[in-house]
């Protein structure tokens, strides 16, 4: 597709369940970011990949959060033993084509809204 695709768009989980959120970046983009956006707040950085390498995971709030991008394309954000405070929109963004100069622009998907009951 032309843009960043995220699935599912909406996820309701019971407290304690594990969830997996998928991100399909723009084809050819080497950089991939995950952000968490709480209601009425700005996006907050979670983690960053360049190709398959996770270069920064300083924003992951706890060891219940895990992200991977094994082949340098699709990424999955996994949240284990979900808690109510995990309820938020999880945004994926990609950037930086291999053959072009980096402009600074991040291209965001529409997000996955997680509600933990």
């Amino acid at each position: 597709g032309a843009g960043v695709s995220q699935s599912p768009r909406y996820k309701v989980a019971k407290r304690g369940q594990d969830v997996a959120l998928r991100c399909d970046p723009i084809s050819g983009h080497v950089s991939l970011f995950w952000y968490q956006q709480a209601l009425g707040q700005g996006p907050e950085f979670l983690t960053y990949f360049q190709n398959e390498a996770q270069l920064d995971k300083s924003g992951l709030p706890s060891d219940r959060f895990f992200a991977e991008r094994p082949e340098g394309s699709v990424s999955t954000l996994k949240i284990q033993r979900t808690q109510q405070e995990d309820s938020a929109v999880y945004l994926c963004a990609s950037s930086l084509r291999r053959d072009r100069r980096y402009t600074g622009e991040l291209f965001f998907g529409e997000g996955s809204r997680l509600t933990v009951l």
Partner: protein
Amino acid sequence: QQQVKQSPQSLIVQKGGIPIINCAYENTAFDYFPWYQQFPGKGPALLIAIRPDVSEKKEGRFTISFNKSAKQFSLHIMDSQPGDSATYFCAASPHTGTASKLTFGTGTRLQVTL
């Protein structure tokens, strides 16, 4: 620790008015300052961005003013339209030539009335 402070939280202007949104940053390593626009249910989209080697940048009806010594920057929307009603986020990052994480402000919800 909020590294980018944004104000106001919300703003209502009439059609044709000029809303102004302000941001201040602390980290002197920041040297790339974009503004993102977000509509309900959508992801943020880049509107306009500036680097600190210039004090102002215009793209269409959108203008960024940048004050490096004060560590402040602002977004002005000329001749605002109802279609501009959205949430606006300022952001900042160090620009290293490769992708760098953005630090976002808390957002300003803009409503443009007829």
